[in-house]
């Protein structure tokens, strides 16, 4: 176990002023010392400041209303002692002893990004004028404590995401959490009546309740320009989401440009040049996400939802029959041909190298059996295999072979709940994605976890479904662990995802439809399970949405009211 002691006062400057009593009060605060103990990824913070610890939940939410943090941190203390921040002097720096330094581009980028968020709107002054402040915060020191700061690493599921800071310090095990911490820090900075940036002395210890906090975007039903995806990743970071589930292809179109099978997008995209994601596009999405601590999980859904695949890959889909002759239409992937599995082997080999994440989402939902039933070759195959009339057995047969193929690429996989429901044999680390409302998702979560599988929830978080009024409240009230099960079962819930399916969504309405409604999911997945007061959430979320608007994100309003700076990007 190592211990690091830091003197915080170096970063704070005091200026003489007439108000001595006030000064001495602040002096104490300024001389606070931060003691950081590090061991096995667990972090503690003690300071000499005399503010009493705030355990009372009500008190906590009252304070949180004032500072307006979203999602609410696990523990924090704040005091009325405020420091000013000057755009010309404030710096975010690496603390002495930090294992990360200026060569860590992920951090350097994050520093710049958050500096802009904090000061970007302030009028630049030509010459810094000499001014006297009672106290000023000049530095935020960032301390990385792990021997490997993971500057160039891809964010993974298992990392311990705790992060803490007192006002001058941001301490985290690895760099990813610094990004999260900077977001919190930027939310703590507020403008006073004179337009000066202030921050109150605050200390926070924070970590997420769930490790999988995802957003699903569907780029098949409508093509989403790269810019929209990147902007969305930016907003995800503001809400501490850490998984971008990219439902990249589906029936409607195949915008993913495969190097191995370029015909898939050549024939299957809405347009082979303007409506595709090139390898460079995909790479830039992954890198942009990585810089914000976000994983990118690609979904290539089979055997259903594959109409667009068939355009560029002959014999992949099942020909449907009308009586004894082919009708000219096609159904799901043809599970009885060896060529299908050869294709899948090459295809997923490419996918597993393009997408760095340890997991791939394989879909497996909503397979319509009517086409399979109509096809005489399939009927014959069913007979040979002894499946009788049970077509879910054929589906299982396909999925089983697909899973074997994907396993050989050393990737883990996520699947929609039907794959579990149909009793396909699954690897122990498979993650079951619950999306159906019927049967009740609570029962499904109980069944999945009873079988020992990890699970994540999306059923109540289909944000493409809209209605009149404040539906974020229903979204907020959901708890992924509210089902009948043992504590061990509850632990198998790794989180959830807000899904924005694309039937009625494209670049024109995506952002205001998703935000701030998805922010409600963000807090549920991040904050303590007892953080559920709607009143407190409303006032914090209202401010948080104004934060987002201020940063140029068209997040829609919760209800009647206004932001100090309205959205102006038209």
């Amino acid at each position, binding site marked *: 176990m190592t211990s690091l002691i830091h003197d915080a006062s170096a970063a704070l400057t005091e200026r003489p002023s007439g108000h001595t009593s006030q000064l001495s009060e602040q002096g104490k605060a300024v001389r606070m010392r931060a003691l950081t103990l590090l061991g096995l990824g667990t972090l503690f913070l003690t300071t000499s400041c005399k503010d009493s610890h705030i355990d009372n939940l009500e008190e906590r939410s009252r304070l949180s209303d004032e500072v307006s943090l979203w999602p609410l941190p696990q523990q924090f203390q704040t005091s009325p002692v405020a420091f000013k921040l000057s755009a010309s002097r404030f710096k975010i720096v690496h603390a002495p002893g930090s294992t990360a330094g200026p060569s860590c581009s992920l951090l350097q980028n994050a520093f710049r990004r958050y500096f802009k968020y904090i000061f970007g709107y302030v009028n630049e002054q030509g010459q810094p004028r000499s001014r006297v402040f009672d106290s000023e915060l000049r530095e935020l020191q960032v301390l990385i404590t792990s021997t490997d700061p993971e500057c160039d690493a891809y964010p993974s599921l298992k990392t311990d995401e705790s992060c803490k800071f007192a006002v001058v310090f941001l301490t985290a095990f690895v760099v990813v959490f610094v990004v999260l911490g900077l977001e919190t820090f930027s939310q703590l900075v507020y403008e006073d009546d004179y337009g000066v940036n202030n921050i109150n002395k605050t200390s926070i210890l924070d970590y997420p309740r769930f490790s999988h906090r995802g957003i699903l975007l569907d780029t098949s039903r409508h093509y989403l320009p790269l810019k*929209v995806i990147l902007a969305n990743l930016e907003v995800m970071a503001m809400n501490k989401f850490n998984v971008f589930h990219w439902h990249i292809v589906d029936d409607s179109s195949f915008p993913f440009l495969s190097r191995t099978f370029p015909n898939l997008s050549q024939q299957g995209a809405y347009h082979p040049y303007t409506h595709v994601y090139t390898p460079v596009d995909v790479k830039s999405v992954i890198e942009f996400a990585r810089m914000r601590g976000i994983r990118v999980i690609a979904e290539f859904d089979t055997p259903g939802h594959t109409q667009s695949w068939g355009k560029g890959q002959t014999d992949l889909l099942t020909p449907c029959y009308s009586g004894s002759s082919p009708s000219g239409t096609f159904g799901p992937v043809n599970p009885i041909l060896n060529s299908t599995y050869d294709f899948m082997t090459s295809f997923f080999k490419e996918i597993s190298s393009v997408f760095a994440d340890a997991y791939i989402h394989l879909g497996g939902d909503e397979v319509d059996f009517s086409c399979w039933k109509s096809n005489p070759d399939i009927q014959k195959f069913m007979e040979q295999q002894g499946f009788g009339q049970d077509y879910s057995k054929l589906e299982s047969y396909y999925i089983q072979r697909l899973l074997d193929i994907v396993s050989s690429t050393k990737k883990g996989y996520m699947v929609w709940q039907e794959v579990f429901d149909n009793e396909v044999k699954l690897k122990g680390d498979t993650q079951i994605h619950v999306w159906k409302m019927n049967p009740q998702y609570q029962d499904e979560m109980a069944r999945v976890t009873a079988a020992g599988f990890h699970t994540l929830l999306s059923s109540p978080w289909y944000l493409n479904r809209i209605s009149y009024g404040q539906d974020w409240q229903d979204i907020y009230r959901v708890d992924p662990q509210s089902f009948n099960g043992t504590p061990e079962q509850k632990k198998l819930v790794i989180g959830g995802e807000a899904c924005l399916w*694309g039937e*009625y969504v494209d670049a024109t309405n995506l952002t205001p439809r998703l935000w701030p409604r998805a922010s409600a999911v963000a807090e549920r997945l991040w904050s303590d399970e007892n953080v559920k007061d709607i009143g407190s959430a409303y006032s914090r979320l209202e401010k948080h949405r104004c934060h987002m608007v201020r940063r140029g994100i068209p997040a829609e309003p919760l*209800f009647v009211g206004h932001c100090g700076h309205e959205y102006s990007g038209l």
Partner: protein
Amino acid sequence: MTSLNMALKMFQAQIKLLRFLFLLIVIYGEVEHVYGVWPMPQQITQSTERYLLNPRVFALSYANDSMAQSGCSVLDVAFKRYFKLIFPDFAHGTGRDKSLRFGNTLRFYGELYVANIFRQKYLNSISCSVKLGLESFSQLVYQDDSSAYFVNKTEIEDYPRFQFRGLLLDTSRHYLPVNSILSTLDAMAYSKFNVFHWHIVDDPSFPYQSSTYPDLSNKGAFHPMTHIYTQSDVRRVIAHARLRGIRVLPEFDSPGHTLSWGKGQPDFLTPCYKGDVPSGSFGPLNPTLSSSYQFMSDLFKEVTSVFHDSHVHLGGDEVDFTCWKSNPKVQAFMAKMGFGSDYTKLESYYMENILNITAALNKISIVWQDVFDYHEHIPKDTVLEIWRGTPAEIRAELGRITLAGHRVLLSAPWYLNHISYGQDWRNAYTVQPQNFSGTEQQKELVIGGEVCMWGEYVDATNLVSRLWPRACAAAERLWSNEKKTSSVERAFPRLKDFRCTLVRRGIQAEPLFFGHCKHEYSGL
């Protein structure tokens, strides 16, 4: 390979190409671009014969015998605007060959035509018609795969079914930056809306900066500097609208919906009582004080001169009587006037006074249906606007109001702030404004309708995508012949195309269903 073989191969390839070309023409000529105008014109005939438009030489100009000539500012500006809309990706700075100009020149008399290609007759006033005609023409121009511009030979005869095709924006529940309003006006012109109903103030805020009573916005706006409409903002909106053939109808709703007024105008609202003492909260405007009427008279004097439309909207909806009932002075006034305990009489008394004020200012009043429901003595020329009820109730109300000889506007089925999952534009499309039992004369008293976008959940972040293309459905209902546009299924592909046109013009119109536009929205 022998040379003969090669020649044969090439020949086959050519045949293939020819077949392909033929197919293209059919698709372009017949499927995609016939009837490519939204809302549907009254009469349109198109042939598959198409003409190339060259943006370098194409010009919009006045015919020699045109009644209007260069210097008619509305049209000069419209020409410039529509040139850009007709040729969206035309790069400027390329040389113009003037000698070729008259080859395809858009001219107009009382009609509009492009030398034997495009002809459109209008039955309305000229400058307005020409702008509407330009809109239709611009929608008929399309680009092929090589980005060349084409228009099919077309004849159109067109006029609107209803004279009042309105759209309401609410700038009180959320402040809408002037830019949002201006771009809404642009999109309105594309759909041939002609009235912008500006619900400018309400309970939550008073953003209109009055020159007579500056305290109203100083104290009643969300912010007295950043969340207001100055006089010049208002003039800008009116000017922008005028150039697009759109009237601006202001609404100053009273006696209810006036909480924000009270902040800047003391003794204006009714103090509510709890038992014998004022509770500290306020209700509707205080109708018992003569100062209230003096104030309203001064305010409307200003408003009617700033907004020079012939009509003014006075609101009059949803008056909550509980506060009036609690106030002893109001009770005394009721007794004095002999109203008994019928507070609708008090409301009527108030509205009657306000209607007299605006009548004295030579303005025709529009009020919400409540005023008719409570009151029989309203001037005959007052227009009633229906905003609530089930379809059966709406039909009944239409019958009652028109039977009393009042003109009426319909907005109840077009509350587009109400959203739901799926293609709810279909509901907006299938409305039948004249489907109620009444005489022909009664039907003619339906002068149109309005799309309403109330502001509880809408501000600049989501206004445009929530409004468009859903409002287009109402636009076609208000413009086009109902029999020719009765099929939602036939409207679907046309509206899909039109929404892509809107997107191409930079309007953030949301999709109807899955699919794509050639040019997707590229903003955020």
